[in-house]
């Protein structure tokens, strides 16, 4: 109930640096080059496994921590329809988290271990969730921009070389698109509302635009793991390529909402066929990653508190299960 105990271990074991390993590694890369998916029981280099566990657990943590900023608005939703949409969305994110944790467990790391790393601060999650949700408009902006950026990333990940991750992304992307449409629809309603509602919308986008661009990670020149991940097809497109796709898609959507994006350098570049945009505040980006964002401590503390508050419940459930398993054995 609280974790998968049937965690698969790799089947073939070859001594590191041995000729057998070199052969396995050649076959592995050949499979990847031929776009054949790697499955849980296939041989894979330890570094590939580690990279995937890191990335998938980070991804799952993002889904879970991402429930916090939106979760606080459920009781304040201004209509019952919006309340239900928001609650269902937050619930979906929890489901995404569980689904990706299970995917990562196929690589031999348990959900509990991954969550431990989240609680001790060893594991990261998307830095966007270290920004606060301050207004109702944020419930729309998060759907539009944050789920939007997530989709841009995840559509690429749906083609990643690891089968369980790729399949999880296909399924999750459908729900994320739904979230994005609902978020955008919320913003359209605000954009047609009173001046106060329009101001609320603009303020929210001003605040969340840049953090959303940061969701694609450091620029390609500063992205240390990228080359290897591309070769392994864990990553299919570079950070900057994805970021550009996202900006290009967002400009028209912002125009339709009658709002401006907070970037004076944003303009169409005929020659490139893309929008040029301003420089991200990388100092802020690295600050937030290091733990110095507006909500870092709070987010992790909430995860810890829920875990600690629930300890007696989990213990009780285990004790009950043991007692009753013993009774059944005796019967």
């Amino acid at each position: 109930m609280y974790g998968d105990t049937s965690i698969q271990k790799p089947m073939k074991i070859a001594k590191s640096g041995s000729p057998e390993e070199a052969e396995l590694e050649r076959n592995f890369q050949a499979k990847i080059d031929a776009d054949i998916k790697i499955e849980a029981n296939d041989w894979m280099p330890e570094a590939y496994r580690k990279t995937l566990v890191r990335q998938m657990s980070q991804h799952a943590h993002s889904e879970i921590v991402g429930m916090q900023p939106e979760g606080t608005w459920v009781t304040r939703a201004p209509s019952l329809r919006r309340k239900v949409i928001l609650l269902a969305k937050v619930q979906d994110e929890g489901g995404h988290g569980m689904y990706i944790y299970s995917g990562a467990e196929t690589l031999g790391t348990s959900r509990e271990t991954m969550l431990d790393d989240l609680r001790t601060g060893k594991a990261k999650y998307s830095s966007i969730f270290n920004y606060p949700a301050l207004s109702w408009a944020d419930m729309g902006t998060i759907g539009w921009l944050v789920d939007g950026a997530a989709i841009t990333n995840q559509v690429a990940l749906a083609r990643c070389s690891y089968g369980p991750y790729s399949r999880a992304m296909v399924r999750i992307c459908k729900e994320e698109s739904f979230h994005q449409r609902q978020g955008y629809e919320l913003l359209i309603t605000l954009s047609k509302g009173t001046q106060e509602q329009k101001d609320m919308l603009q303020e929210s986008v001003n605040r969340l635009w840049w953090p959303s661009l940061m969701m694609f990670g450091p620029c390609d020149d500063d992205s240390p793991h990228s080359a290897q991940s591309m070769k392994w097809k864990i990553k299919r497109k570079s950070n900057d390529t994805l970021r550009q796709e996202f900006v290009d898609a967002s400009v028209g959507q912002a125009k339709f909402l009658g709002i401006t994006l907070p970037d004076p350098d944003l303009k169409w570049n005929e020659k490139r066929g893309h929008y040029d945009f301003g420089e991200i505040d990388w100092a802020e980006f690295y600050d937030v990653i290091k733990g110095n964002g507006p909500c870092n401590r709070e987010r992790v503390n909430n995860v810890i508190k829920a875990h600690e508050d629930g300890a007696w419940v989990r213990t009780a459930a285990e004790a009950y299960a043991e007692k009753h398993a013993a009774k059944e054995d005796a019967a």
Partner: protein
Amino acid sequence: MSSMTQKEALTAYATQIADSSLFMGHRMSEWVFKAPTLETEIALMNCALDLIGQSRSFYTYAGEAEGKGRSEDDIAYLRGQTEYRNPLISELPRGDWGYTIVKSYYYSVFAKLFFKALTLSSDKQLAAIAERSLKEVTYHVRYTGEWLLRLGDGTQESKKRTQKSVDELWDYVGEMFIMSEAETQLLQDNISTDIAALRGAWDQEVEALLQQATLDVPTGTWTHEGGKTGKMHTEHFEYILAEHQYLQNRYSGCEW
């Protein structure tokens, strides 16, 4: 005997049912990112979604019955404290996991018996909404009941904590079975149901489960009341409304 027209009584009746579901759901939705496990968190959100969904159906019907063009949200959001008619149990704080489980178990067993009876209402629409709601709360009874067994028959600590919740919440049970004015009036035409008559079945079902959970069955007969009449809500209620109505109060007359 009554100063209410039939229309007013039906509106009031649908509204009081909706209020109960709404605030039960409200409290459950507070468990987002606070539950003991991901599974329990998602399960509780499911229950909250069911309950809020039920409230929407009943509010919408209340608006239709009234015939003055009020929407579900007009009724759900734009009232003062004393106009809300939920039993007090639904507005009590979420407490710890055991408190929430006991609270929603008590409520869900009531709701199951109530909706089952309401499926026989002469009002076809009430009967139809009751039919749908019955499936949902039947699942809530099962889910919270299973947890009650684990908590009661789990560890010393879980037993102690849960017994305390069982005892404290017992004093809020009686109000669920007190007929409101609208409820009494609508009984003549078989629109409402005689909830006072459901108490025996409730006692039987709950006592059996508490015993199975190795918990003591409370014996008190006194009950808190005041929610269903609107005369006296708990101190917690205005805080719920402060959150619930915040945007509607701050920016009145907007589309959301």
